[in-house]
């Protein structure tokens, strides 16, 4: 039973990390890149605005950072809960 509780806590912690990562994932692409672009139009980047940069470059760089952050965080979580390989 303690095993099950531990794996439940592990899963809840994993879900929390996923929610945070997906919130950032949506913010940098759908948010800054598309819907919120008009709000960022005051900040100019190389002949255009910050929203354009997020849509064509920034979002991709954030995606990479997100995956490596998730990998690093999950390796720690796996070890904490004793479910690493």
């Amino acid at each position, binding site marked *: 039973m303690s095993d*099950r509780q531990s*794996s439940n806590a*592990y*899963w809840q912690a*994993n879900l929390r990390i*996923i929610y945070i*990562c*997906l919130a950032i*994932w949506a913010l940098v*692409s*759908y948010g800054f*890149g*598309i*819907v919120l*672009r008009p709000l960022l139009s005051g900040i100019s*980047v*190389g*002949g*255009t*605005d910050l929203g*354009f*940069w997020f*849509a*064509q*470059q920034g*979002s*991709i*760089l954030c*995606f*990479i950072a*997100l*995956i*490596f952050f*998730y*990998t690093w965080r*999950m*390796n720690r979580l*796996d070890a904490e809960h*004793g*479910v*690493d*390989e």
Partner: protein
Amino acid sequence: MSQFTLNLLFITASFALYIGIAIYCRAKSTAEFYAANRGVGPVMNGMATAADWMSAASFISMAGLIAFTGYDNSTYLMGWTGGYVLLALLLAPYLRKFGKFTVPEFIGDRFYSPTARIIGVICLLIVSITYVIGQMTGVGVTFSRYLEVSNATGLWIGAALVFCYAVLGGMKGITYTQVAQYVVLIIAYTIPAVFISLQLTGNFLPPLGLFGTHEGSGVAFLAQLDGLVTDLGFRAYTEHHNSTLDMVLFTMALMIGTAGLPHVIIRFFTVPKVSDARKSAGWALVFIALLYTVAPAVGSMARFNLTATMWPGAEQGDTFSQPAVSLADIETSPDLAWMRNWQVTGLLNWEDKNGDGLIQYYNEAGAANAPVAAVIAEQGLVGNELTTVNNDIMVLANPEIANLPGWVIAIVAAGGLAAALSTAAGLLLAISGAVSHDLIKGTLMPNISEKGELMAARISMAASILVATILGLNPPGFAAQTVALAFGLAASSIFPVLMMGIFSSRVGKEGAIAGMIAGMLSTILYIFAYKGIFFVAGTNFLPDTPDAWLFGISPASFGTIGALINFAVAFGVSAISNRPPAHVQELVESIRVPRGAGGAISH
């Protein structure tokens, strides 16, 4: 050395490399054939995944799509990379832990139903076969342009090569050839981009050059491009023109479609550990981003170069300070030989409509309110005189437009072939796995020996190469539009069922089957309603215009709605049907924790 000899040299050398690798890495067991014995390191697998994923569409077409539309087509950049975040967080580690060989196999086991598995096979086959047709067509086009052979000869050469390394090597051979193909394609893509970025912006890093300063005029490059295209009556490059809702839904459809593509998912079955699957998705995106951050620079700079070729005054930042390019120059100047080369292929054409000896390029639809209106009145223009410009020219003719040396052109030819062949091989492996493992071993002949299954896998791979080649020779008229169908189906059927299989222990077989069918049918119906039944022109019962689309949602974006329908139906049906049996609950518990993945190889 002539351009033809150079092309031949580079293409032959790259092919010799792929075949050498294939002979070295022959598959001897089903575990090697389907999953390279789960011994591929995460960085290596990331590189192979990048080649597997980046197709002829990414290499040849995407920069052109961005070039002629600008900001609105950022959807492709975000959509085709953001899917890897979903793969890393939601699918890859859990499917690797599950530890079997194919995507339908997971669907069948998790939803304890052979019917669910067969529906999974059908979705996989529709998605992968539509996709592979596009790759084979790309191989034919590249061969016929660069090696001056007929389209059909080119296709058969490509098919023979794929046969060599995919049938012999299976996943193991494909993995290492894909690594080599990645290296070839990324070099081919970035070298011309570096030269062009240097010429236009003085910055040798294209992603920085894109946001840099235009050398000729001293103005920010993107502002300069905006000015140039609006002078000619085109819509501003960096501005948002289309529906915001549709842009969001299309990006989402590309992201969840990417995460649901079986040939990408099976690449993550080859790594040794669950944590490697996560890491590998990160590396895959790094290698993909090398091309995807260069692509918008290639697109915008190629658009600038093409326009400045037509209006030489644009080089110094003043579009109409010099007359348009003359017909005599196009027909004789060595600098413009590329225009004559590409006219032969039918991808580029011009016509001196008003007979003034100049070729004026502008946008007829938007000319009335643009500075070009004065030129039209003064020079008596009767229409745009650059009559055909195909999107794909933007990458393929790019080195010629920028007057780069012949060996750069030869590398681009080898790179285009690498992109198409690596994706074709991955797709063929997904198809043959579904046929030999899910249909033959899983359903028709469960007692088949491992040797027999390996033989079945090889025969079904050879048969799929044959089918793909014949379809590539006679591409159905709808080849380009079917991409919408492939992504729409992957998004609306495969992605949701995999996600629910992992994240819900409540959804059972009734819910999963109903959800997959609802998602798939609604998406097919919506696409056919506007594009015609099986894309046959005239059979559509609604006009394919933004006004007629339901809430302004384009058929290509509908995969997102299809996925929502899938989730809703699956949860609705599950609420009134039985809970999954205990052994399935345990399966869900077990795939959620990484420990124990190593032992799952046995089969």
